[in-house]
């Protein structure tokens, strides 16, 4: 849970509820826009891909912030570092795999 600035009572509840609602609305917008672009089908493929990518990454950040409650505060530092380290491992492995395999494809053509 994110730590509410006002502790106790219905205000703290509303603060936390607002967090989940904000996350839900942002995630919904970040989902609907790329889906709509693909459904439309009139925009150039490269533009659509960029929008999908940027909106996807943004939505992951929204999930981390509002649902997993990991932010830049001191008490979340452990989880934040763990996530950043894991993310860097994953990105290295994905980038490395794709680099090598697409290089192989190119050589086999």
């Amino acid at each position: 849970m994110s730590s509410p600035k006002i502790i106790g009572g219905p205000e703290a509840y509303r603060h936390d509820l607002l967090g989940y609602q904000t996350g839900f609305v942002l995630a919904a917008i970040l989902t609907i826009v790329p889906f709509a672009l693909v459904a439309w089908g009139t925009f150039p493929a490269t533009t659509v891909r960029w929008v999908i990518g940027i909106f996807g990454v943004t939505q992951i950040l929204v999930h981390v912030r509002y649902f997993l409650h990991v932010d830049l505060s001191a008490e979340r530092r452990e989880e934040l570092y763990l996530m950043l380290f894991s993310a860097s491992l994953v990105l290295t492995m994905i980038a490395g795999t794709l680099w090598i395999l697409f290089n192989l494809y190119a050589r086999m053509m």
Partner: protein
Amino acid sequence: MNTIADSHGANPTVDADIAPRRAFGLSFEPEYGHEHDRARITLSGFWLFMMSDLIIFGLMFATYVSMLKPMSFAGGPTPKDLFELRGAALETAALLTSTFTFGLASLAIKYDRGRAQVTFWLMVTLALGLVFLGLEVSEFVRMFAAGAVPQRSGFLSGFFGLVPLHGLHVTAGSIWLVMMLFQIRKAGLTDDVKSRLARLALFWHFLDLIWVGIFSVVYLGGIG
């Protein structure tokens, strides 16, 4: 002699009430027996599990994307032939809403809104999870009927490595949810039950996060 034994934690019964107890392993602070600390540490451990799970998903994503060159379709169906935007949109809606309703359940636990409210939101979450699984299974059945089986091409092997792995996680999460509903019914919202629900909440939110990657890369990337 005694001090050496204590510092290694080898003989905890010696002078247990004189010297402060040390936590096990590489931990330099005295051990606190509080339930709260234990729950916090367990949650940290669950974070470690989720991040290793993230790495498995990451490699499945890498495998899938590396199988997107026309050569890997092996003359079989392509993403454009197979994927339907409507199904993917419905699955996404079900899972995203379920992560929100789990949030409402977490809030009901945190602010002691009572067992009935917690149970209600968890049931809604479970129902949405099952809707998601139903949609996913029907999609796989349709693909199988069209001859799109895992062994058809590299692309389909990659697809059936990644997407059903996520579905399997949602299945495990749903079973876990059912078990927690039984525990709430039988034992009530005890500290143990709350601690398990906190981990399940993390797991469920994490699955939705993975799904964002799947619908972006597999479905939207495949159709668009």
